């Protein structure tokens, strides 16, 4: 009885903070947990004309749609593109903000540092719709880049930046790095700012050079932040890692010419589920991707604990 009173008292004391937490829980419940009932559609012969009750009353078809997807002529290509683009983004977009943050931290001129920081994170606020429009202006056959290269005599024919399937992956990764690098740099910069200056002073007295200080102090001190960000990035690997940009990029910059390398599971789900109205099939395909992502986040957390002794949960 006494314990309950204490709990209640404690809760009232923390009420303003608890409300923030509760809001988040309610949000998750309504928008993330309750819709999970819809997963059942992936196992049923559901058609949208059956209405909401059709989700429960339609015929059970088991793994029919899962088998259909795995046997689809495009399955291997979709998985290859999804995994390929995602891994490339992880390899390039994850370490670059760390390196950039360290470099910025080492800058002496505060004004220039702020200018670089501002310029680098501004693209984060531009939507992918705008970026796809800008890309067209810059990279189309009559765009600025091709015109410049041709006028300099470096190329004879325009390069199909937007149509050549061999260039799509590189384009996706580069544009993602350009757009999101500055934003994630702020997170790592914040972690670096939190590192005690005493450590640097002590290292300096011991004769440590700049690179040694970075290697032995800065990076180890921001390791917890790096690990958390890495686990989050791995959890959203198929979504595009840190920026979660895979769908937008593929949908807006993909076309019939580069579809071979630009189509990913998410755009496939969108096209099949919404454009063709096959909600049950799209649910099954989406579920396969979610299951793989779940495995990834658990395994990355497990390995992170093993290697660094730190994990998200």
């Amino acid at each position: 009885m006494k314990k309950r009173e204490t709990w209640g008292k404690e809760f009232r004391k923390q009420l303003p903070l608890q409300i923030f937490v509760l809001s988040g829980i309610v949000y998750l419940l309504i928008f993330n947990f309750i819709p999970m009932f819809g997963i059942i559609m992936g196992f049923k012969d559901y058609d949208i004309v059956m209405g909401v009750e059709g989700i429960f009353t339609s015929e059970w078809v088991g793994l029919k749609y899962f088998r259909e997807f795995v046997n689809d002529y495009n399955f291997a290509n979709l998985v290859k593109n999804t995994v390929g683009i995602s891994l490339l983004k992880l390899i390039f977009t994850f370490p670059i903000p760390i390196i950039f943050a360290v470099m910025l931290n080492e800058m002496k001129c505060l004004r220039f540092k702020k200018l670089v920081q501002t310029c680098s994170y501004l693209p984060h606020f531009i939507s992918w719709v705008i970026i796809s429009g800008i890309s067209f202006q810059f990279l189309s056959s009559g765009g600025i880049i091709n015109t410049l290269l041709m006028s300099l005599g470096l190329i004879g024919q325009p390069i199909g930046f937007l149509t050549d399937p061999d260039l799509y992956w590189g384009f996706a990764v580069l544009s993602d790095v350009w757009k999101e690098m500055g934003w994630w740099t702020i997170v790592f910069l914040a972690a670096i700012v939190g590192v005690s200056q005493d450590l640097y002073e002590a290292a300096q007295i011991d004769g440590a050079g700049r690179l040694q200080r970075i290697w032995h102090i800065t990076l180890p001190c921001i390791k917890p932040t790096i690990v958390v960000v890495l686990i989050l990035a791995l959890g959203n690997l198929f979504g595009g890692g840190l920026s979660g940009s895979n769908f937008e990029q593929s949908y807006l910059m993909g076309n019939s010419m580069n579809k071979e390398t630009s189509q990913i599971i998410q755009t496939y789900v969108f096209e099949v589920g919404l454009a063709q109205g096959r909600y049950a099939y799209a649910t099954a395909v989406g579920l396969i991707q979610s299951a793989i992502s779940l495995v990834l986040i658990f395994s990355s957390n497990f390995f992170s604990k093993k290697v660094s002794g730190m994990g998200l949960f």
Partner: protein
Amino acid sequence: MKARTKKLTALLLTGCIASTGLLSGCQSNNESQKTASDVSGTSAASGDGKKESSDNGTETTELDIFIDMNWWPVDTFTGIIPEEIEKKTGVKLNLTIAADDNQLGLMIASKELPDLVFTTKDLDRLSSSEFCYSYNELIEQYAPDFEPEELLVNIAKSFSTDDNYYTLLNCLSTNEEWEQAPAGAPGQACIYYRKDIYEAMGSPKLETTEDLMDVCAKVQEEYPDMVPLGLGGFWKLQPISAWLGASGGNTYQMQEDGSVVHYTSAPEYKEYLQYANEMAQKGYITAEAYANENENDSHQQAYSGSCFLYTWYLSPSSLQTLNTESQKINPDAQWAVLQPLGQANYNTTKGWAGTFISKSCKNPEKAIQFVQYMFSEEGRHLSKWGREGIEYTLDEQGLPVFSDEWKETKKDPDAMNEKYNQYFYLGVTGVDELLGDYMDMAEEDLADCTAYKDGYVNYPEIAIATPVSSSDEGVIEAKLKEMLKAEEAKVIFSSDEEEFEKNYANLQENAKKIGVDQLNEYMTEKVKEVKAEYGL
């Protein structure tokens, strides 16, 4: 005290944010839950639609309409024709134009449909009591004197999910009606060419597809900054496909033995792809133009003088637009219609687009009465020809003769859209549209356009037999379409013959995997059934 105020503010803010988020997320669409019987009490007098007083003193009901065509040239219900329609029906439309091909699918999935939907796609999904009111029920309740043509009703029932019909398709005319039409040709893909440049090159022979290749070579040589053939978004290489005996943009093809096959299974398909590949290898078409699906973006290459030939929809207004827009940049630019260079095109149409009255419609009574008017002779003629006695009069053969003011305005498509606005032809027949487009066209251009009518034939039975999207065959058809978007481009833009053969074999293998044989078998049988049932 200060801390307490802070706490209170934080509490209030959190509460506001949470409730706003929840309320916006949980917003229910109560309107969409209405059934036909629920609305029996809803009338113009008691409806929820916004009302305002129109010029003639009667009340006007505003209805929201989604136009599922991203190329639609007008975005307001203004101009002499819409205003007259408003006077006659008491309905004013608020337009939303589709941003892309997937928007309607998204709206159906979220059940966020406006009052009316005008579309050529998703006909079977919308023909369901889950989303729309059936015409037959609404007619019984609100427009008992509306008697749509039996063929239109049967066609609408052919893709309905139940025994009701939920729309009527416009722009349908029989082969006999097309044949009797005095001028012009049914809607189809064609090629426009720069007449001024053609003449400057000495008017080289241009009567066959081989000649076309030679002329492209000449253009490339004499005008290196120009792409010989520009592609108009969706229309891509459709006219060339038709001239070479392939599908010309149709999904199915009637074979000599009476079977009906998906166009990839027709023997002419490979010949067309080889021709297209030759054009691509020689640089007569560009990958970028092929990849562009947006018609309005594609037009820029023609307007700016970047291409010599341009594929687009055959119509006087397209020709007029090309000339007007191009001459803004180059006053000497002169476009003309290139007469067919091979076989005549065919069509598999059961009509074009239908107007659906969604379950969230504010005023179904007004909506069905509006549709009734648009399908009446008066409504059909008004929407495409303007006001009788002012914009047109009928001659002794019943054909429209247009006023000088109309003809003058038509020379500038933008002025035409602004002043008259012919784009609310929701209920016209194919021939109504044709007469509205061609009766005032210059003789020389008219002859070029009319050449597309020779040998033209429509197979409505193929259109009616097309599988509904939820059936196994419907899924195969959709998957083939999706697969071909990428694979066809790969074949056409193969760098050499070896790669072409490899990519073509891959395309055919994928089509087989998806189930093209099953689809061909189904279509052949179904078309026979439809022909017997409809007496076609």
